[in-house]
């Protein structure tokens, strides 16, 4: 029984033109067309409706449609930011290193303080008798060895400043009014004059004094090294060996505290200014 008839042959022909017939259907259509040759022209007409791709029609700008892989690059603005950050870090690091290694600045500060102390402490008769100390502190070791003598000629450049400072502070009768500034210097004055009766021992004390001047807390070291100072641990009911251990521990702690104070004091007086075009950044420590 033929599936292709005169009623549906046109649909078969169109499906044939569209390429949608399977092998069995195609065979049936061929058999039907063999029986009806008068329909061959119609079948040819349908075959002529099949369009062929016009290969001459092309899209000319394919490059505009292509995509590129994202480039891994850092923009100039980012480089500027990185450069500024690196510069700030380098400057801060340099400033810290300079602050740690530049002890001259600290020594100067200490000298000024000592000068004030020496003059501000008229209650201490020994310090008052030795105003030379204000210049002697510029070179502590030599000054103490030459204790009681005239100031070194080499320090004359500092004398006017010290004398003017002295005159300014001589009018200040109650030194306790400047409590914060005078507490440490008073101790310095005491300690510096303590070895006075024992001249031979001054040579051993003097180097220590240099160190204390640098660390800006000379009194504590001087007290710690003074053999006549009271033993702070004498009241403890422990052995002498343990007391000595406590003393050593105290000395170590004091030394660490002095170093920390030295760094912090330097940092308090340090400021960094960065200029980026019209912008200015100030870092205060």
């Amino acid at each position, binding site marked *: 029984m033929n599936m292709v008839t005169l009623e549906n042959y046109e649909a078969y022909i169109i499906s044939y033109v569209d390429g949608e017939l399977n092998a069995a259907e195609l065979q049936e259509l061929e058999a039907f067309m063999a029986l009806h040759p008068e329909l061959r022209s119609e079948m040819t007409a349908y075959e002529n409706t099949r*369009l062929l791709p016009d290969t001459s029609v092309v*899209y000319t700008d394919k490059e*505009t449609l292509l995509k590129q892989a994202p480039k891994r690059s850092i923009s100039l603005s980012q480089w500027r930011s990185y450069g500024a950050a690196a510069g700030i870090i380098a400057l801060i690091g340099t400033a810290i290193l300079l602050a740690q290694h530049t002890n001259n600045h600290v020594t100067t500060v200490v000298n000024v303080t000592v000068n004030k102390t020496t003059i501000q402490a008229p209650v201490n008769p020994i310090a008052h008798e030795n105003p030379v100390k204000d210049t002697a502190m510029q070179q502590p070791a030599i000054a103490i060895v030459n204790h009681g003598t005239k100031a070194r000629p080499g320090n004359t450049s500092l004398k006017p400043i010290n004398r003017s400072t002295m005159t300014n502070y001589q009018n200040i009768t109650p030194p306790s009014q400047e409590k914060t500034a005078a507490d440490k210097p008073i101790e310095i004055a005491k300690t510096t004059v303590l070895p006075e009766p024992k001249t031979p021992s001054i040579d051993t004390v003097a180097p220590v004094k240099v160190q204390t001047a640098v660390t800006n807390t000379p009194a504590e070291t001087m007290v710690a090294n003074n053999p006549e100072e009271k033993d702070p641990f004498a009241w403890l009911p422990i052995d002498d060996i343990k007391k000595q251990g406590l003393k050593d521990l105290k000395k170590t702690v004091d030394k660490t505290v002095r170093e920390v104070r030295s760094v912090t004091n330097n940092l308090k007086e340090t400021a960094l200014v960065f200029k980026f075009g019209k912008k200015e950044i100030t870092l205060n420590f």
Partner: protein
Amino acid sequence: MELKDYNSCVQEWADPLFRFAYKCTGNAEDARDVVQNSFEVLWQKRQEVYTDKAKAFLFQVAYRQSVDVFRKKGRVQYTEQPELSGSSNPGNPDLKRILERALAQLDEQARALVLLKDYEGYHYDEIAQITNLSETQVKVYLHRARKTLKNYLVSVENIL
């Protein structure tokens, strides 16, 4: 779909897509816009489109946009294209011109279906997916379009 797959699609399917859009819209500039938009949509959806489905995706977008363009502008007026004549059917240039005119007799949807069938060789079910029609609708519309084209060819042959 990766970048290289997308670029391969551009190299392989830009011309067929432009050809399809050009025959649908009858206007080269509209066809270029359709192609650019289709590939742009593909690029945006590249994470969701498999490479082997990229061609159907492109023609789906192009079909919608071509039909939209056509509906906005109305029926296109096919004109003689001297630079194109004789290129697709060198053996019978007259038949090609007649077919061009016959194609203009179809509505935009039927024309797109014929182009998808003849130019790209899609089957009914594939055309149904691209055009969002049922397979039966595709078959009916295509058969109707064939009859129209055949009748036009027969009528012209009779006149000639």
